[in-house]
């Protein structure tokens, strides 16, 4: 590899493999030209800094950068969880009021369908609109300020040390919103193996679809520190992504690391209009899903919970969903998951929101009271945390798998993605149960 001083740009771009990364050469030349122009037209005056220079001194600091990033991330998730609680209670109260009327429908199966299926399923999932919208609002504000680009820059040093490509962090950040977007965003990563690694680890980032599960479970089992638990799960997702990326890059997907070259935008004061517009554009997708396939899913789950081989009105354990759940439940017995949880996890393969929706319907059809009390009776706090870890790490949804297939063009990698995530989720959940059981009895 030749040194920087010996560089000839045109020659280097023609034969980049003999030189340092071409992007570095281009960036270096671009800034040299900018410097020349500035020397000709700019008269240096009194020393002035702008806010971006000031803040970057700290936010991009070698040692303070990552702790500050963690504080900002914690603030985002704490805001998302704690502020949304009262608005969730409002929506819950509205649906509770609606269900008092729908439960009085004279035809029993129709009353059950509307109350337990539609209101209990879609209505319950709609109570999670506030945290999802607030998470999107927080991400929009961070994006609009210009901090998210700095986050990628700060994480680059750490990720490069682990053998990952610096640009991988940008699609991984998109994964906080939606795993499909994260996998598609990996197109910006250079090099086949770098891109493939990013595609394979992107689903480990916790998408907004998983948030209802965390909010529900953490709110019930860890009420005093729910925001912190949700934050820790997001961090766990990042850590697992980095570990898996490290393993892949040092085994099956070895490739030369290329440096991250990115221009950091100036810090901006986010506008209320801009941030809320971004929040609405992203959040409305969730509303559309709730109004379409989550509604259809509710009806299907209700039907599977209410009907069995013996017809309508069988005990839920003998319903189709009960049979399916009990068939698979022994595999999850070491994790402390009852068949109701297992059935919800199976439906969660369609989309993560469906886990919560399925649980609400199954417990409602079963005739249980409030979902909080039912879940407290179904599992221990350690198993509840294991459930959140499992939901974090197993495949996000069928749509993500389809995008992985289209982006990799390979069934082999798609199946690998499914298999490794399922095993990873299972063994990490098992580790939580084992360690938790040892520590807390």
């Amino acid at each position, binding site marked *: 590899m030749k040194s920087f001083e010996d560089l000839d740009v045109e020659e280097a771009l023609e034969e980049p493999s003999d030189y340092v990364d071409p992007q570095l050469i281009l960036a270096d030349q671009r800034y040299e030209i900018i410097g020349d122009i500035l020397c000709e037209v700019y008269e240096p005056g*009194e*020393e*002035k*800094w*702008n*806010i*971006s*220079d*000031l*803040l970057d*001194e*700290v*936010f991009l*600091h070698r040692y*303070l950068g990552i*702790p*500050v990033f*963690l*504080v*900002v991330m*914690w*603030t985002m998730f*704490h*805001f998302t969880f*704690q*502020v949304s*609680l*009262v*608005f969730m*209670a*409002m929506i819950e*109260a509205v649906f509770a009021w609606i269900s008092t009327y729908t439960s009085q429908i004279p035809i029993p199966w129709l009353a059950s369908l509307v109350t337990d299926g539609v209101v209990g399923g879609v209505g319950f999932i709609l109570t999670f609109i506030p945290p999802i919208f607030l998470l999107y609002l927080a991400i929009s504000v961070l994006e609009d300020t210009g901090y998210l680009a700095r986050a990628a820059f700060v994480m680059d040093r750490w990720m490069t040390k682990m053998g990952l490509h610096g640009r991988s962090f940008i699609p991984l950040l998109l994964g906080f919103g939606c795993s499909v977007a994260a996998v598609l965003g990996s197109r910006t990563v250079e090099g086949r193996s770098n891109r493939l690694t990013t595609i394979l680890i992107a689903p480990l980032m916790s998408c907004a679809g998983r948030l209802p599960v965390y909010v529900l479970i953490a709110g019930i089992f860890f009420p005093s*520190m729910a925001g*912190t638990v949700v*934050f820790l799960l997001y961090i766990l997702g990042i850590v697992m992504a980095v570990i898996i990326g490290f393993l892949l890059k040092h085994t099956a997907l070895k490739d030369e690391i290329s440096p991250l070259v990115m221009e950091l935008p*100036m*810090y*901006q*004061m986010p506008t209320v209009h801009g941030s809320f517009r971004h929040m609405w554009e992203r959040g409305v997708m969730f509303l559309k899903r709730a109004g379409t396939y989550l509604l259809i899913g509710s009806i299907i789950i209700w039907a599977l919970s209410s009907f069995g081989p013996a017809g309508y009105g069988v005990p839920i354990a003998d319903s189709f969903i009960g049979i399916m759940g009990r068939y698979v439940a022994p595999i999850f017995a070491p994790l402390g998951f009852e068949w109701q949880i297992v059935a919800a996890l199976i439906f969660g393969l369609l989309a993560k929101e469906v886990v919560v929706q399925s649980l609400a319907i199954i417990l409602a059809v079963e005739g249980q009271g409030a979902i909080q009390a039912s879940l407290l009776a179904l599992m221990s706090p350690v198993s509840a945390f294991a459930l959140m870890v499992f939901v974090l790490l197993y495949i996000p949804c069928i749509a993500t798998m389809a995008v992985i297939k289209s982006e990799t063009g390979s069934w082999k990698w798609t199946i690998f993605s499914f298999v490794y995530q399922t095993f990873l989720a299972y063994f990490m959940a098992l580790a939580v149960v084992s360690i938790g059981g040892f520590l807390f009895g």
Partner: protein
Amino acid sequence: MVRNLDINMLSKKPRLMAVISSAAGLLYVTAAVMQILEFMGIVSLWFLTPDLVTIFVLLVLAAVFLSGVSALRLRQKQAIAYPTAGLLLSALLFLLKLTILLTNALGWVLSFEDWQSWSVVMDIEPTLWTFPIVVVMFAAVFWHSDTTEKMENRVDTHDL
């Protein structure tokens, strides 16, 4: 919208800024130590919460404020970045806690079940009460700096 800042305006008294940054940093260190004692059950004070993450947050804030102190003492103007970023982060956390307090108050006013036993004291924690103290300290520096400058200008005018 990024306004250019005249660094001289912000750091007219770098040594005074170093003192104030040290004081702010020590305030956050003290709050973090009190939180640790609260977490360990050694003390039980109404303005603390036994939360490990809050301890980490307070220590990061302390580190940001204290990192710039030695450079400020050496009159390095760019070190003003540390108290500026520290103030910004403190403000962010203060706003977060204030918003949580207000939404909890809303839940209590609407008499929702989960907020029946809520009281304002439950939401008082170090990131909420440290920020006003830090703001007052920095405001005092600016006020002192501004007053001193005006007096110096007045003396200069009088001399002329």
